[in-house]
Structures are given as structure tokens and as C-alpha cells.
């Protein structure tokens, strides 16, 4: 994380990647799929939000564990701000997914297992911030929320990756549906999708570094 605070090259990379993703996402040929039609292009925007959330939450939990071993407030700050941006990405993923679903699944909320599970995951992380707000003492707050962070992250695995695959689901790759791989093994989706994941994730980390630097400047630990 300190490396990200000191360097800039990856910010330019994220800008270039996302410009490419916007252009390629709209102009490159896509598989002709029923129900989805052209909206399959949303893949490059909706799914990277969730990937970004996972990467950011991973960074957050790593720093939570680090805090428990070194007790430095700066580490706790890293953990918190990464969780904050991760939650923002999760909300964006949820909202874009609901909008996409309205036109493809017929309704914004189908109680699809992955929809429900990701809503629960987000609620667990909302509670993380409520917890932080409820403890006055700095060190105690940091310690308590670091432990909670670890449990919250651990909950993501069954919620997002295991549960949706066990039952019927509308999401590709879950509940007996073929993953997007079968649609595009030799197609152009991957050409845009992989850069999209990298680009959006880098933007997420960039926003996190900005929030961290801002609160280090103002000594306000909840910037």
C-alpha cells in the first residue's frame, strides 16, 4: 500500500486502460446472445465493480491483520479506507446489476442467490462502519473493527462463491448456467474484459490512496 502511495505510473495506466475499455466495449464485436443482445457489453462495467470490490476488501483485510500485529493507526487507516472504497464499488455493482436485470431478467430483484448473497455481504460491511462509529477510543475501535473485518471477509467466500453455485441461479457461472466462458472461448469479450478488471481495480485503489492521503493531512481518520 505504501508503494501505491508513493508512485503514479499505475494511475496513468488505469486511465489508458479504461479509455480502451470504453472504446472496445462499445465498438468491438460481441457474441450474439439471446436475452442479452447488446447489453452483454455491460459485462465490462458491472462485473469489474465486483472484482474491484474483492481486491479492495482483500487489501483491507490484509491491513486489518497487519494492524493487529503492529498496532499502528496508519495501518488501521489503510484498512478502513480500502473497505470504504470496496463498499462503494459493491454498491455500484449492485445498482448496475439491478438496472441490467430490469431489462434482461425482467425485474431489478429476482431474489437470485447471488443477488441475495451479495446484498448480505454488503450489509455485513455496512455494519463494519456502524461498529467503527460506535466506539470512541481510537485503539479499541481499530482493534475491534480489525477483528470484525477478518470475519466479514471470511463471510464473502461462502456468500459470493459457494452459495450461488449450489442452487438454481440466473447468474452465468452459477446454478447450472454455463459461465460466460462457453459463450466466448474464442471471442472478443476477453480482449476488453481483462483490461476492464485491471483498469477499474486500479481506479479503486487510486481513490483509496486519495482518501488515505487526505485524512493523513487533516488527521481526520474518517475522511
Amino acid at each position, binding site marked *: 500500500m505504501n508503494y501505491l502511495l508513493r508512485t*503514479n505510473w499505475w*494511475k496513468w495506466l488505469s*486511465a489508458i486502460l*479504461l*479509455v480502451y475499455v*470504453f*472504446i472496445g466495449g*462499445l*465498438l468491438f464485436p*460481441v457474441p*450474439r*446472445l*439471446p436475452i442479452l*443482445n*447488446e447489453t452483454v457489453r455491460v459485462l465490462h462495467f458491472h462485473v469489474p465493480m465486483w472484482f474491484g470490490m474483492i481486491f479492495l476488501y482483500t487489501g483491507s483485510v490484509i491491513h486489518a491483520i497487519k494492524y493487529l500485529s503492529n498496532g499502528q493507526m496508519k495501518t488501521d487507516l489503510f484498512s478502513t479506507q480500502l473497505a470504504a472504497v470496496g463498499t462503494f464499488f459493491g454498491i455500484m455493482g449492485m445498482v448496475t446489476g439491478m438496472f441490467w436485470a430490469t431489462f434482461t431478467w425482467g425485474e431489478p430483484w429476482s431474489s437470485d442467490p447471488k443477488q441475495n448473497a451479495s446484498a448480505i455481504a454488503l450489509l455485513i460491511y455496512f455494519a463494519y462502519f456502524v461498529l467503527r462509529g460506535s466506539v470512541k477510543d481510537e485503539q479499541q475501535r481499530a482493534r475491534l473493527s480489525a477483528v470484525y473485518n477478518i470475519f466479514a471477509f471470511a463471510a464473502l467466500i461462502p456468500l459470493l462463491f459457494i452459495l450461488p453455485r449450489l442452487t438454481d441461479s440466473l447468474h452465468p457461472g452459477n446454478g447450472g448456467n454455463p459461465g460466460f466462458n462457453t459463450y466466448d472461448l474464442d471471442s472478443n469479450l476477453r480482449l476488453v474484459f481483462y483490461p476492464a478488471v485491471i483498469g477499474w481495480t486500479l*481506479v479503486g485503489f*487510486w*481513490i483509496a490512496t*486519495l482518501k488515505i*492521503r*487526505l485524512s493523513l*493531512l487533516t488527521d481526520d481518520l474518517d475522511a
Partner: protein
Amino acid sequence: MLNFLTTFYANILLGQIPMADAFRSDGKIYVVLAIMLILLIGLFYYLFRLDRKIKDLENRK
């Protein structure tokens, strides 16, 4: 369920999936792209400016 799957794959094989080909040939897709790029580049301009502002504040300290 089986009937759905059959028609699903049959449609793909017959190439009858409607796409926005007309939209593309009209050139309208470029309008959409241009607007999205304006938004994106505006966003990055804002981010870079914010980044520089914070860097100046850090250097001043």
C-alpha cells in the same frame, strides 16, 4: 425447460439474435461512445487534479 433450451440454441445456430447492427451502421454508436468518453476523461481530469492538489498540500507540510 428442455423446449426453452432447444429454442435457445436453435436461435443462436440460425443467427436470428437481434442486435444493434442498424444502430452501428447509422454511426449513432459513435455518439454514445463520444459522450461516454467525455464523461470518462472529465472524471480522470478531476482525479488527476485532486491528486495534484493533495500532493501540493503534502509538500507544503
